[in-house]
């Protein structure tokens, strides 16, 4: 009997470990918002105090501004963003027919600039690109993250999962080491969140600016003393894709505020 109990206990420990090692169960899934101090939550929740709204306003202007040799604005084709962009951010990254790969929202905006507006691409993390991306994502605020179902995305999402679970850098840590296995504990006094993508682009107090999910991923890579992937690198988009599945069901908060 004692042996049987021992075996059962080992089985329970093993299955719990497997569950913990691959994503977070639906009932445990929590936005980074829930891990924040009340003051920071208040800052996000009131649009008149949320600094990210400045990027939304800038994006709204850029949306209507004619660009490139085609001298056409985003609104020239897409019209009223509150209608046409509603729900888009909730299902991105999406499959891009032209490249045969997933593309994120910022990538899609730049691809649209190149092919439709015949304009130069906006630099990664430039105010203009962040503003447009934030404005478009904001149109889905309150909607649930719902990853694109396209089966052609599966291998890229799987690569994202692999990257999320790979130990890297001199500190030999994976994303999963902290955000799957140890969320809720404190790293240097700050709670470790679950690393969900539902607030991006978001205003980070540490940055004093709005930044992209790719910027955040690169920050963590630098933190574990790894060589970060370049902005726009396929690996970063694959990671974004995996994170969308991992965080599915959470509400879009763009522009979120985070410490």
């Amino acid at each position, binding site marked *: 009997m004692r042996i049987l109990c021992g075996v059962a206990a080992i089985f329970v420990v093993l299955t719990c470990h497997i569950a913990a090692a691959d994503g977070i169960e639906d009932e445990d899934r929590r936005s980074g918002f829930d891990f924040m101090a009340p003051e920071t939550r208040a800052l996000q929740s009131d649009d008149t105090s949320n600094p990210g709204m400045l990027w939304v306003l800038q994006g709204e202007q850029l949306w209507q501004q004619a660009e490139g040799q085609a001298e056409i604005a985003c609104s020239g084709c897409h019209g009223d963003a509150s209608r046409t962009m509603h729900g888009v951010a909730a299902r991105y990254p999406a499959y891009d027919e032209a490249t045969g790969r997933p593309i994120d929202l910022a990538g899609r905006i730049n691809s649209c600039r190149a092919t439709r507006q015949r304009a130069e691409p906006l630099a990664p993390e430039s105010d203009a690109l962040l503003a447009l991306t934030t404005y478009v994502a904001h149109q889905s605020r309150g909607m649930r993250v719902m990853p694109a179902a396209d089966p052609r995305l599966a291998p890229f999402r799987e690569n994202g999962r692999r990257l999320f679970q*790979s130990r*890297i850098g001199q500190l030999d840590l994976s994303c999963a080491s*902290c955000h799957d296995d140890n969320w809720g504990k404190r790293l240097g006094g700050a709670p470790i969140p679950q690393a969900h993508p539902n607030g991006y682009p978001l205003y980070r107090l540490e940055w004093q600016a709005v930044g992209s999910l790719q910027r955040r991923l690169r920050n963590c890579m*630098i933190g574990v003393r790894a*060589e970060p992937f370049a902005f726009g690198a396929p690996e970063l988009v694959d990671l974004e894709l995996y994170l969308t599945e991992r965080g599915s069901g959470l509400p879009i908060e763009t522009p979120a505020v985070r410490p």
Partner: protein
Amino acid sequence: MSRMVALTLAGVLMTAPSAGEEALTYAVEGDAIMQPLTGERGDPERGAALLSDRHRSLCTLCHSGPFPDPHLHGTLAPDLTGVGERLSEGQIRLRVVDMGRLVPNTIMPSYYRVAYEEGQRVSAAWRGKPILTGADIEDIVAYLVTLKG
């Protein structure tokens, strides 16, 4: 076990350390490294300062203990209060040098390791260097053995 040390040693020899660089060799006996990495024991005062320097040693990012600024301590790893009572000097040394040898899935980095595979993407600034030097580790070990509860 001894093969792992030999592999580490081979990696070091291939990168041909110049004078003044770390030897990065040590002998593991059971779950301990009995001999100081640098041939002599460290300075506990320097060790105390280094342990609390979260940018350099990183210790308090995960560990709590009888150190300054407790509100900045992590809760990812055991409290180090009384560690000098629970573990011998040699056991503490191996745990700082290479915890992964004792607990393969540990999140604690191996502080005296330099050999990583290509996919590890160690940043250029840190490639070929351990997190801490042997002398740094000896200072920290010398301090931790004084924590008697």
